[in-house]
């Protein structure tokens, strides 16, 4: 498949492109395998965001890969041995699609048969995600939040006001270059945001939910930031506001659990949130999905903004250092070295 081509290609940009196609392809695979929600997520994440992040990283690190210096024979040997052992292991596995496989015997029938009475949400994936296994999901959201903090601490920059004036001329140039793009995206962005909200609140009934909606929302903001400049986007969604939203999303999730604890149930047991258990479940799932959506969207925006901000700062630094080089050739810049490889 495509993966083999990824191994062979040296140009990293092409690799990223192939990764994007690979994401699309695996998402269609998920559709064929009936995993609608997963395909949804993979579509928005694998094809969109991950490719963009990798691109942003590549612009900072240069695109050509160095030729290999050692023979890959040993690696191939290891890979073949491991693969052979894994295939030998699969001989005992249940057949593809068989209904008698042990996976389908344990808890899944209960989810499928009883979730309508217990939770009252047609989309079983949502009910399992947000109600039966809500504690897991809380952990996942916390992981995402932590990753956002990690990126922030690794890549964030001190605010510099000085660079703003210099960017104006290049911004005007950009305005002219992307006229058509800008207008079309101005039309499209509200639709994307609206669609994200639809996915968010329709997740109980169809495919969708907080994770997907967060990613789509973030994608719309990223589109805006790419076309209208990072500073313009920052003016709408400034950094501290997004960080606040990310924290609030996680807090909302956890506090729903605490409230249900106070009302006499278990942690994240929504039956006690309202008089009627079903209504309580609905309320709980709604709030939790909202929290998840907030956190995911905010973390994705944080990640992208930091990557792009770091990139702009780098470009700015290289421009300045080249200017300085023209003015005085023997001046060595104190900026961190961000030129080419050697």
């Amino acid at each position, binding site marked *: 498949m495509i993966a083999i081509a990824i191994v062979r290609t040296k140009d990293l940009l092409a690799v990223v492109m192939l990764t994007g196609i690979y994401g699309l392809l695996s998402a269609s695979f998920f559709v064929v395998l009936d995993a609608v929600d997963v395909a949804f997520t993979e579509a928005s994440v694998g094809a969109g965001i991950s490719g963009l992040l990798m691109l942003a990283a590549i612009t900072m690190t240069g695109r050509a890969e160095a030729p290999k210096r050692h023979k890959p024979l040993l690696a191939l040997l290891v890979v073949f041995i491991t693969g052979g052992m894994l295939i030998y292991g699969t001989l005992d596995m249940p057949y593809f699609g068989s209904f008698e496989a042990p996976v389908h015997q344990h808890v899944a029938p209960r989810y499928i048969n009883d979730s309508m009475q217990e939770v009252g949400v047609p989309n079983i994936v949502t009910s399992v995600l947000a109600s039966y296994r809500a504690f897991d999901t809380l952990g996942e959201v916390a992981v995402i939040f932590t990753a956002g903090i990690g990126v922030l601490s690794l890549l964030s920059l001190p605010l510099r006001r000085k660079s703003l004036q210099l960017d104006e001329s290049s911004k005007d140039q950009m305005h002219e*270059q992307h006229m*058509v*793009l800008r207008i079309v995206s101005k*039309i*499209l962005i509200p*639709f994307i945001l609206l669609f994200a909200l639809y996915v968010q609140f329709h997740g109980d009934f169809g495919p969708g939910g907080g994770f997907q909606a967060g990613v789509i929302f973030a994608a719309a903001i990223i589109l805006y930031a790419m076309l209208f400049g990072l500073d313009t986007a920052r003016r709408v969604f400034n950094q501290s506001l997004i960080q606040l939203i990310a924290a609030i999303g996680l807090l909302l999730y956890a506090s729903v659990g605490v409230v249900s604890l106070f009302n006499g149930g278990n942690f994240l047991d929504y039956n006690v949130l309202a008089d009627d258990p079903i209504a309580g479940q609905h309320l709980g799932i709604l709030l939790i999905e909202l929290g998840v959506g907030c956190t995911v969207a905010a973390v994705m925006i944080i990640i992208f903004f930091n990557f792009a901000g770091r990139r702009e700062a780098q470009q700015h630094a290289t421009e300045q250092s080249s200017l300085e080089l023209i003015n005085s050739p023997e001046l060595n810049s104190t900026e961190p070295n961000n030129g080419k490889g050697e």
Partner: protein
Amino acid sequence: MNLILEIGSGLCLLLGCFLCLSGGVGILRFPDFFTRMHAVGVTDTLGAGMILIGLMLQNPEGLVLLKLMMILLFTLFINPTASHALAKAALRNNLQPVLDESTNKGGDKPSKP
């Protein structure tokens, strides 16, 4: 009435498939980037539109129809825009179209706006 819808949707799907296939052959066989883009851009927009219209005729009902129309609308918006941006970027980075031998001497004129 139902039969007419069936036949119409079948025809649309067939036409769309043909257009998509021709676009696929075009992207593989044409000699340089701009002709490839021509093949893809023209046949993709129409082919996707045809297939979507065929699907629309297949199941005319409420929300599904609305979603199909949204997809069609977005496709019609997005494809030409993306092609435009692509062509512009390629031209700006001095990717020359392959011209005939006779006209090649003045050939770099159109690439510089």
